[in-house]
């Protein structure tokens, strides 16, 4: 018995009429594509150039492109099942590039893949395998969108998505079917034309729908700003951030058009999940609508019809959106850019916001408390003054210096350093790093604070900083770079993890759940160090949303200072989730998380204890550790 594998059937030679029909249909399809795509491209190119954009280092870009686009790593990792389905469709498209080229060439009699050749045979089978996977993938995505209907895809069913799914399915089906009909048969001709027509209908739909991401998102990923929540510097005397269309940069425009409306950003957004107006997807789409209607040369304010001021000031800058986005959209520079536009021009009027700004205009800390309170605390704890000889400058931060809970954390961390014999000192004239004003878009204050702190650090010859506040870490390490070279800085979780071996372990076996602070995790990529510290002190358990997907406490982005939130409190949602793990202790590594979760946990029926990882570690220290010999 012989078994021969089926061969891909090709229609027999085309008549001149058919050739002309094909060419004119293809031309029409291409024209329809260009009619929409050309203005989009023009809009992007007419936008302002990004002031700080550099193509180098190119290696990073190539790698990101390979990993995120070719391997679909982010798409799969963040949503494994639909991600994989999407990857199959994507890889199917890639595999089909050659097949489609050949498919069109056949009509003109210049087909280059002969069904009999060994390479072609192999390639057609390979493509067939991808086609099967792609068909399965698109079916899966169809079922998800139309039957499962996750809420972040929006309430409205997208019929265009259904139609596109149908087209993709038809493309795959017509390709696979050609293996089962006779070469040069009428059926093969019918399949060829069906496949071709599907293709030519698909092409012009791309720029008219979110499927534009097929064309743009590879470019978006390649042209990323390079850095999480990287806020571009202001260029010149007329740049106040994103005020009007004229301020929109090419990269921002490209990103706006790349959005695939998958809703991952919304799904993870703490504001969108607690009944606020803010929906990060709508912010991006709002910008797109603005560009579509008014274009990048418009003096019309960006905040108004298409995006609301209320929404952009509800952002905690937790960065879950930007971290999740599979097409490389950078939400934070956009949202913070819009805030900059509103704050730098004085358009944002908010009592709490103004109070925060005035506190920092007139004083040294965001809480508006007197510096003498800070001095009293330093005196009480007998922290040595930094004199240039110690290894570390212990940066207190506003919370560490003024918040009763923050002070406990700093005091415990200092005890640990004393125990280790680490030499450190504190600066009396430390000012707020500018984190809240940076995130709220007040460039004037941020620059003043960054510059005066940089000067203070240089005067005191500080080379290494350690602090309990991830917001200070991020702002000093990254945001200050615009104004000078900050000293090396590390978060106390990194310090503690490195010294774990020299610190006594706890005999405690209580369950401890670690809450990842956004500014430590997503902003600094520090996940394992605090966990190592937690494991040293008890049995670690994980919250449903942890590590990269951790859910914000609600304090970031200056929101800790902006008064009561509308809707549900973010901190309460997170506290309930942490309490539900059954852990006896909630550990965190940020004084802002600590203060937000404190009240929120107290409101739970069975409130777990709340501690910082430094306090967890300090518990195991011998009582009344003697100060290190200096």
């Amino acid at each position, binding site marked *: 018995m012989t078994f021969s594998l089926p061969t891909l059937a090709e229609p027999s030679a085309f008549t001149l009429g058919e050739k002309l029909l094909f060419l004119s249909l293809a031309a029409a399809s291409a024209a329809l594509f260009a009619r929409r795509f050309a203005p989009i491209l023009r809009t992007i190119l007419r936008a302002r150039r990004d002031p700080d954009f550099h193509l180098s280092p190119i290696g990073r870009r190539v790698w990101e492109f390979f990993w995120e686009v070719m391997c679909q790593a982010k798409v799969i990792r963040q949503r494994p099942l639909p991600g994989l389905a999407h990857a199959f469709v994507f890889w199917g498209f890639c595999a089909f590039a050659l097949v489609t080229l050949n498919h069109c060439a056949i009509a003109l009699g210049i087909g280059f893949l002969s069904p009999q050749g060994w390479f072609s045979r192999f390639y057609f089978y390979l493509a067939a395998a991808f086609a099967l996977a792609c068909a399965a993938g698109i079916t899966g995505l169809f079922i998800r969108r139309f039957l499962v209907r996750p809420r972040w895809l929006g309430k409205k069913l997208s019929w265009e998505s259904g139609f596109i799914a149908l087209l993709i399915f038809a493309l795959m089906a017509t390709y696979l079917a050609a293996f089962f009909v006779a070469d040069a048969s009428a059926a093969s001709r019918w399949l060829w034309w069906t496949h071709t027509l599907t293709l030519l209908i698909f092409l012009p739909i791309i720029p008219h729908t979110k499927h534009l991401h097929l064309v743009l998102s590879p470019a978006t990923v390649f042209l990323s700003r390079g850095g999480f929540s990287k806020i571009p510097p202001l260029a010149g005397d007329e740049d106040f951030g994103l005020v009007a269309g004229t301020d929109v940069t090419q990269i921002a425009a490209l990103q706006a058009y790349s959005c695939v409306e998958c809703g991952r950003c919304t799904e993870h957004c703490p504001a969108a999940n607690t009944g606020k107006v803010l929906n990060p997807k709508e912010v991006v789409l709002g910008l797109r609508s603005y560009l579509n209607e008014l274009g990048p040369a418009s003096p019309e304010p960006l905040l108004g019809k298409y995006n609301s001021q209320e929404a952009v000031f509800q952002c905690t800058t937790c960065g879950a959106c930007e971290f999740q986005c599979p097409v490389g959209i950078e939400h934070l520079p956009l949202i913070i850019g819009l805030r900059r536009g509103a704050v730098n021009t004085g358009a944002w009027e908010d009592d*709490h916001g103004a*109070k925060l700004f005035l506190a920092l205009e007139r004083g040294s800390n965001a*809480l*508006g*408390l*007197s510096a003498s*309170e800070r001095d009293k605390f330093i005196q009480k704890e007998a922290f040595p003054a930094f004199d240039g000889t110690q290894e570390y400058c212990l940066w207190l931060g506003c*919370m560490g210096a*003024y*918040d*009763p*809970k*923050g002070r406990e954390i700093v005091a415990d961390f200092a005890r640990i350093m004393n125990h280790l014999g680490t030499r450190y000192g504190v600066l009396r004239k430390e000012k707020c790093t500018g984190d809240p004003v940076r995130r709220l878009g007040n460039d004037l204050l941020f620059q003043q604070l960054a510059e005066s702190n940089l000067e203070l650090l240089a005067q005191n010859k500080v080379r290494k900083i350690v602090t309990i506040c991830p917001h200070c870490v991020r702002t000093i390490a990254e945001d200050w770079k615009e104004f000078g070279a900050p000293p090396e800085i590390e978060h106390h979780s990194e310090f503690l993890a490195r010294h774990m071996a020299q610190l006594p372990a706890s005999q405690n076996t209580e369950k401890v759940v670690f809450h990842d602070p956004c500014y430590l995790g997503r902003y600094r990529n520090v996940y394992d160090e605090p966990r190592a510290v937690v494991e040293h002190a008890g049995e670690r358990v994980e919250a449903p949303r942890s590590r990269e997907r951790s859910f914000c406490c609600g304090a970031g982005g200056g929101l*800790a*200072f902006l*008064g*009561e939130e509308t809707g549900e409190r973010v901190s309460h949602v997170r506290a309930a989730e942490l309490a539900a793990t059954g852990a006896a202790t909630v550990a965190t590594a940020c004084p802002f998380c600590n*203060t937000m979760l*404190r*009240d929120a946990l*107290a*409101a739970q029926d069975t409130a777990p204890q709340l501690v910082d990882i430094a306090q967890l570690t300090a518990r195991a220290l011998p009582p009344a550790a003697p100060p290190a010999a200096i």
Partner: protein
Amino acid sequence: MSGVWVVLEERDGRVSRISWEALAAGQALAARLGLAVSAVVPCAQTEAPSVEAAAKSVEKVVRIEHPLLAPYTPDAFTLALEQFFRSAEPDFIVFPHSYQVRDYAPALAARFSRVLIGDVTGIADGPAFQRQLMQGRLTGEYQPNGAGPHFVSVQSGAFRADQVAASSAPVETFAPVIEPAQIRTRPGAPFRASAQTVDLASAPLIVSVGRGIKEADNLPLVQELATALGAELAASRPICDNGWLPIERQVGSSGQTVAPRLYLAVGISGAIQHIVGIKGSQCIVAINKDPDAPIFEVADYGIAGDLFEVVPALTEAIKAAKP
């Protein structure tokens, strides 16, 4: 020259408490310099204040009487006192440092090409006068140069009114010449902020309650204390979250920022969000069970004890201390 003159202020037909304190200061100054003390009461027609003053240990009391002295205007007071002191030629003029005095005394002193030493808390050799600078962080000693009259106003509470000895003195009347056209401002009747709305931001006295109260049913205990003090009732966030008190009464970073003369925190542990809202208070008192509660860090006076015992005792003590 005619010694030390103390300007007494009339309030609701009586001499105000702070005026007696100014008189005590005037007597202390006069004793130091060996001068006589007299009192002067500018008022429209009432005799009562000058009669009251005449029962104190002063050389004489002068009632400056003119219908245009009521209601108070800086123009009328400056004119009246200028005319009187031009004739009386005092060495020192002592005022209570009241809102009214702050409004006209600097101008009055300027008419004599003099400078008022205001808000004085003590008298030293020289004589020199002590007053606070840099918002209480420093004390400065001021000396007037040249011949009198020298103008001094004394801080409320700096001198003890009960140290003014009783005696009896003659009352004279002085009638200044004031034309209606010389009064350039038209004051309206005093009013209070609407009683319906809670205005914690401008409340001079606040009693605030926190989680330590345990149940809504216990709130009357604290309300009674507030009533006894004549204070507004406020709360920390958990109390308002529970709906025990309306949100307008919430103090802290997500509620009201307050700056009362006295902030009395009952059962409030002192989270930073709360402390941020009360930092402008002149005097903070905390009552809390936990002696380590952070509220004690910012308090001027603290009682570490059970609020269910301390608050009723305090209510009684305040009622007892009321004149």
